[in-house]
């Protein structure tokens, strides 16, 4: 079940895996976050490696959204270290995260339906020629970004987002992160509202995104998706990291146990860096 669905981790060149495994692109160390009396995150460690998809799984209320918002700079962290490329950084707002090359693709996609694909991809960061919008450059670059992801489903870069399906919209939102040369992309439930074929397309896209060297964090409820595309799985249970394991070392049943009880009885201790 695991390795057969896992085209990338097995045939991947070993030197890339070892290199990336030793150097996380983005790392959170011992993060704590409280809202008033509610202690939501307890000493959370999280690592995102370049060229890998790290899945963040957990039940409702486990702290996934809070963790993502801490990463994105929307919530300030109480204590703990935010390390980017081995250097501690301070992230005080979404702009700081954006400057590091961290792009968040939210569940509600934050696209303007009345604008076309190019206009949406450049929204807020338009290219200009003096006073005038540089449509030529924007359209070419948007096309390049979609080309690099081998997007097959979009008919024209000038069609309005209103005319796109859910999967196509997700594609546009993800392509935006390629356009801006993002180093780390956080995807919040990208397949939650999608049909089978569209889920397939988006997962392929996520894989290609990671293969291009980007560090991807995939937040998902869907373990089938997680096992299909993720290289590592970080499971959250009640605000603590229940396990941080390579996907090939665990089974779906073990991950379900981690999500629902916070530990898995037969999980090999060596595969898990943190157990509670």
């Amino acid at each position, binding site marked *: 079940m695991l390795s057969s669905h896992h085209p990338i981790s097995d045939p991947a060149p070993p030197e890339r895996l070892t290199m990336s495994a030793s150097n996380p692109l983005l790392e959170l160390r011992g993060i704590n976050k409280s809202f008033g009396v509610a202690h939501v995150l307890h000493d959370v460690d999280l690592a995102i490696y370049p060229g890998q998809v790290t899945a963040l799984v957990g039940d409702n209320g486990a702290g996934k959204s809070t963790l993502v918002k801490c990463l994105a700079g929307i919530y300030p962290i109480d204590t703990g270290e935010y390390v980017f490329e081995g250097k501690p950084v301070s992230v005080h707002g*979404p*702009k700081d995260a954006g400057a590091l090359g961290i792009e968040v693709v*939210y569940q*509600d*996609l*934050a*696209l*303007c*339906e*009345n*604008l076309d694909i190019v*206009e*949406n991809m450049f*929204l*807020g*960061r*338009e290219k*200009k020629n003096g*006073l*005038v*919008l540089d*449509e*030529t450059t924007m*359209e*070419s670059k948007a*096309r*390049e970004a*979609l*080309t690099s*992801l*081998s*997007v*097959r*489903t*979009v*008919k*024209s*870069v*000038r069609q*309005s987002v*209103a*005319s*796109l399906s859910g999967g196509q919209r997700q594609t546009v939102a993800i392509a935006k992160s390629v356009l801006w040369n993002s180093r780390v992309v956080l995807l919040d439930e990208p397949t939650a509202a999608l049909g089978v074929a569209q889920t397939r397309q988006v997962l392929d896209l996520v894989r290609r995104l990671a293969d291009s060297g980007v560090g991807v964090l995939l937040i998902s409820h869907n373990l089938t998706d997680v096992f299909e595309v993720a290289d590592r799985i970080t499971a959250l249970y009640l605000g603590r990291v229940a396990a941080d394991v390579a996907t090939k070392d665990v089974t779906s049943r073990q991950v379900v146990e981690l999500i629902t009880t916070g530990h898995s009885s037969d999980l090999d201790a060596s595969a898990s860096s943190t157990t509670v």
Partner: protein
Amino acid sequence: MTDIITESEEAGFASDLTQSNTLGESVQAYISRVRGGDMGALPSVFGLVVLFIVFGFANDRFLSNLNMANLITQAGPIIILAMALVPVLLLGEIDLSAGVAGGVAACVMGVLMVKHDQPWGLAVLAALATGAAIGIVIGLIVAKLGIPSFVVTLAFFLGLQGVTLKLIGEGGSVRINQEVIAGIANNNMSVAAGWILAVAVIAAYAVLALLRHRQKVARGLQHQPLAVVVAQIVALGLVTLGVALVLNQNRSVNPNFPIKGIPYVLPMIVVLLILWTFALGRTTWGRHVYAVGGNPEAARRAGISVDRIRISVFMACSTMAALSLIVQASVSGKVSSSSGAGNALLYAVGAAVIGGTSLFGGKGKARDAVTGGLVIATIANGLGLLNQASWINFVVTGGVLLLAASVDAISRRRRSATGL
């Protein structure tokens, strides 16, 4: 459409499509867009044609050169006020006070010129500044306090009428005799200048459209077929030359005093149309106005200052409204305590909506104000010629506004169903 896409095309990404290949296909695409609810200027142009036929048969003076010139000067203030409202409607907001804000501004101009003997240029600048200041206050209240614009501008609608009364005195009015201001609606360009202007407008449009088309083809960007570009140039050319031809004929009923030439209000509208088309279509500001109107949350996440966009739009609206009421003062020869009150605003909202600007935000163009404004002005003008009681004018115009809003709502539903 999808069946014409082949992998063999020189596509940037798989199934990329840069051109709808033939004229026939683009006509088909247009028809399916219209059927899908994206009607653009179609209802207003169709309405205008119907109105011209009906009034033309009902009254033989309607199509006379004199009346056509009158129609254009009457439409002027409506079109400019509608243009003021387009960006506000694009945000999905409304400015009910635009008419009376313009009224206050025109009063400032009139009082400065007549009672204080100030030069007209200074008076106009003061009027525009008054408009801008009112707009900034409205924008600040709407954006920062989060009160619905409907309520804020309703309050301003009442309050500003009081300000006008205070400035001008109960039931009073100020006559506008100043040559330049009165001349906007009452003086005409020379026939030669009119022709030169018409040809220059067509030539400039043609050159720009063809250059853009060539550039897009050269860079492999999405573009329309050349035939469509040429058809647009020809259509604009015919309309422009037709209008110039009518206005450059003698339209006087007295053979001893010929009146001919394009009234100055027309080139003024053309300049404003170009300006607003540019601002909304080609600048970052315009793009952000559409974005805020389409999805304010997405705009905010994209780093756009939504508040600043809102404030600037209300400021632009009231400033343009000032201009509209200055033109209105020129048409009627006076500024009165009721300037901009009454149905001025309703006409302008009706004009924008009939032209194709959506009341729900995110969709509309500056040119909608022109086509819609002409429809509204034609109704008022035609019914006036038929010597109908003014109550009929109100009922018909109200009915047309309701019809336009219904068309907007229905086409919006169709658009969301067909995803256009």
